[in-house]
Each structure stands twice: as C-alpha cells, then as structure tokens.
C-alpha cells in the first residue's frame, strides 16, 4: 500500500502529457472550495430542532460562525505543519489524506447534526475538514509549478481558480440537496452532509490517483530556464526551514495577509453594504446578485491575473493589485455619495478580481524567489497569513464599524472609514512589494545536498 502512494510510483515518463495534471488539481480544488459556501448551511442549522422555526435550544448563528473560522485556522496550521511532509511523501499521499479528512469531516459533521452535538461539527468540519482543506490546497499547487516552469502563474491560476469555483458548485448543490431531503421532521442538512462527504471524497480520490510528478531534471521541450541576471527568478532552491530566515518570506506574508484582509472587507459585507450605501435602490435579491457577481470576478481573477503575471512579472502584478486596489478603495465612498451604483459595482468587481489574483499568484511568486523544489512546504507556511486574515480581518472590520455606529456615525457612512483603512493596508503591502528582491545566496541549498540530508 505504501508503494502505491510513493513518489517513485507517481513519477511520470518523460513524454507524459502535462495537461493531464491541471484537471487532477482541479478535481481537488473544486471540492475544497466548498468551504466558502458553508454559510448556506448556517440558517438551516439554526432550525435543526424546530425545523420550521428556530427554538431556544437550537444553535445560534454566533455558535455556528466558529465552524468556518476553525476550518480556516486549521487550513493554515495543517498547510504550515504538513508542508515538509508533503515534499517528502509526494502529492498522491497528501491528496489522499486530504480526501479522507475533508470527506470524513463532512460525515462526522452529519453525525453531529443528527445528535445535535455542536462539538462534533467543530471537530468534523472545523478541525478535521480544515486539515483536509490545507493539505488539499497546497499539494497540487506545488506539483503544477514543477510541471509548468515556463507558465507558473497560469498553472497555479488554474488550480486556485478551482477553489473559487468550488463555492459556486458547493452552494447550489447544498441548497438542492437540502431541498431534496427536507421533510416535516428534518431540514435535510444531515443527509446533505453525507452525500457531499461521499461525492467530495470520490472526486478528490480521482485527483489523487491521476496526479503525477515530473521525472528529475524534466523541463518542457524547447524551454530554457531564465538567467538570474535578467530577473528575480532563481534557478536554485531554498529549503523550507531556511526560507523562514529570509526577509522575503515575511514580506510576502504581510502582502498576502493584507490583500486577503482588504478583500474580506468587501466580500464579507457586500450584500449589506450595497443595500445601506444605496438605500431604497437595491432589493435583497439584487444584493444577493451582487455577491454572486463578486464571486465570479473572484474566480476569474484567480486565473486571469495569475496567467498575466507570467508576462507582467510577479512584482509588477502585485504593484497593480496594491496601487489600483488602494485607489479604488478610496473612490468607493465617493461613488456611493455621488449615487453612481454602476461605478461602485464595477470597482468592487475589479477589487475582488485582485483579491483572487493575490491568492493564485503567490505560489508562483514563491517559486520565483525560493525555487520550485520546496515551494509546496513554503507555500503551506505562508498560508498562515490567510488564516490570520480570515479570523482577524472580519473581527477588525466589524469592531470598527460597530464603534463608529455607537458614536453616532450613520450606517451608510460607517463603511467609509473601514474602506480607507483597507486602502492603508494595501499601501503597506505596496511598500513590502517594493522591498522585495532576490534571496541572499547564503540561503540556497548546496547543489550536492540530497533529500535525505534535508528532511
């Protein structure tokens, strides 16, 4: 069995078609992207006992909010701690583990709903499922970078676009399943969790079986690695532990953290924000449509920006994200005051495309700076920035907003200050990107070092 998962077993022949790898990565990312659609379960989960309406013994939304927060925290932690293991055992074993964790986490959550035990949901979806998210997120990304050294941005964009697209599948699928299984005595969440757990496990297993790593020294036909004198792209490698000793890692950490926080600033409150900033002009349905539109741009941005970075350069792409993003955040309140809803929506859409682009371009940026050999492990550690932003971002935004409203600021105007803070965060991220340069050569691993020496 261990042989079946070994790196040797999944090493492809030199003529293997690399275009078979992106669907394997997508098969995993389209599943784990469901995490962003978990909120569709929130309202039905508050009616597990009452079914038609919430009873005092039913779970509150504040209690349920911890499930997603835990999942995001464990995504970062598992990616950070298992990164080294991923590089050692290869992507098949990691993706298999991710499938077991994510599918199993959903099944355990179904048991928790059935017996109305919230701790089982925290453990199932939050902790175990979160670990599945982290492992499933990083393992195919690093493999794709190795298969597409000539188009790193496009390769990571394809996979991480799947994470954005996963929410688009997970949300209507969950709604359809709950509707199908709904009865007079059940809201249908238990059954929906079981079906989704099984479906996602199978799909992720298919991705795990199809994944291959390129043979040592493989490169695309006719492609030569760029020379270091021409760009920041290195042909050497930095070990996972050594990367933590470089300022570049922390600069990228801050850039990812602030880009995610800024994106959440809009995404997390998009529906309410549009309704309050254009009071009387936006229906609840239209506001929901706004959230859908932002999700589309989030997904498309992951592929388009990341692919563009292959031509623009990683550093220039992030300059665009942070400069254009900061300007748009400052303009949003002006568009609201002027009553210009079209420009407001268009600006939010561009901002969300850059939020997605920030996620998908970062692994390629890491590969440029630290080399491709240990990029999976380094990427895993960098994802703690996402966890930090995912938990602290909404808390910060909600706290500032509540504080302002408590001090007499009108609800529509309370967003202005928050948006300016987001612009400031992006300005700081811009400076971090400005400071980015190639790694000091002392951090590169010796070319003669073997993997056995390093793990």
């Amino acid at each position, binding site marked *: 069995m261990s042989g*079946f998962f070994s790196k040797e*077993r*999944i090493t*492809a*022949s030199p*003529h*293997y*078609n690399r*275009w*078979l790898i992106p*669907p*394997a990565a*997508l*098969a995993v990312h*389209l599943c784990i992207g469901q995490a962003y659609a978990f909120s569709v379960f929130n309202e039905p989960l508050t009616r597990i006992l009452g079914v038609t309406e919430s009873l005092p013994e039913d779970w509150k939304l504040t209690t349920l909010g911890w499930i997603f927060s835990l999942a995001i925290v464990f995504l970062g932690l598992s990616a950070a701690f298992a990164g080294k293991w991923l590089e050692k055992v290869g992507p098949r074993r990691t993706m298999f583990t991710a499938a077991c964790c994510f599918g199993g986490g959903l099944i355990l959550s179904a048991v928790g709903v059935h017996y109305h035990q919230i701790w089982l949901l925290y453990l199932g979806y939050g902790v175990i499922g979160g670990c599945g998210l982290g492992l499933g997120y990083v393992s195919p990304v690093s493999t794709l970078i190795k298969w597409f050294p000539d188009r790193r941005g496009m390769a990571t964009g394809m996979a991480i676009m*799947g994470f954005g*697209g*996963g*929410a*688009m*599948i*997970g*949300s*209507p699928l969950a709604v359809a399943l709950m509707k199908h299984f709904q009865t007079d005595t059940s809201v249908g969440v238990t059954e929906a969790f079981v079906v989704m757990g099984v479906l996602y496990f199978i799909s992720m297993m*298919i991705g795990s*079986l*199809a994944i*291959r790593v390129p043979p040592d020294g493989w490169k695309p036909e006719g492609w030569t690695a760029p020379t270091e004198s021409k760009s920041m792209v290195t042909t050497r490698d930095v070990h996972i532990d050594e990367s933590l000793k470089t300022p570049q890692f922390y600069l990228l950490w801050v850039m990812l953290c602030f880009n995610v926080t800024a994106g959440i600033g809009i995404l997390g409150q998009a529906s309410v924000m549009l309704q309050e900033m254009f009071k009387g002009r936006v*229906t609840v*349905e*239209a506001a*929901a*449509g*706004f959230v*859908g*539109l932002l*999700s*589309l741009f989030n*997904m498309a941005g992951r592929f388009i920006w990341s692919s563009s970075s292959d031509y623009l350069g990683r550093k220039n792409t992030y300059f665009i994200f942070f400069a254009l993003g900061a300007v748009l955040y400052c303009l949003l309140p002006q568009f609201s005051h002027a009553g210009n809803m079209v420009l407001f*929506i268009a600006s939010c859409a561009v901002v969300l495309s850059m939020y997605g682009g920030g996620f998908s371009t970062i692994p390629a940026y890491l590969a440029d700076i630290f080399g491709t050999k240990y990029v999976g492990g380094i990427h895993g550690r960098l994802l703690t920035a996402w966890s930090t932003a995912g938990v602290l971002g909404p808390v910060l935004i909600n706290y500032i907003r509540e504080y302002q409203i408590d001090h007499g600021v009108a609800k529509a105007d309370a967003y202005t200050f928050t948006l300016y803070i987001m612009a400031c965060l992006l300005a700081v991220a811009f400076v971090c990107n400005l400071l980015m340069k190639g790694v000091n050569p002392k951090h590169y691993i010796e070319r003669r070092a073997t993997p056995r020496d390093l793990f």
Partner: protein
Amino acid sequence: MQENQTVENAKPGDEKHVLMLVLFWAYVLIPLAWGVTQTIKKAMALFA
C-alpha cells in the same frame, strides 16, 4: 499499477491519450460550468 500503466503507455497524439485528456477535462469543467451558470443566474438579479 494498472492505471499507472494505462497512462504511461499512452503517447501524446494517441487516440487513447487524447480521449483521456478530453474526458478528464470534461470531468472537471462540466460541474464548474454548472456552478458558474447558477451564479450568473443569481447575479442577473442585480441588473433586473
């Protein structure tokens, strides 16, 4: 082992290889297209 051999023996340009490529991409793109369509339908409410 079996699936490994099936893939490895196929050469780019082989019918089997092309079929596998098409099927695998369809396997991921069809659900994605469904999800995108559902989201676009929802987003249309904004322009109604």
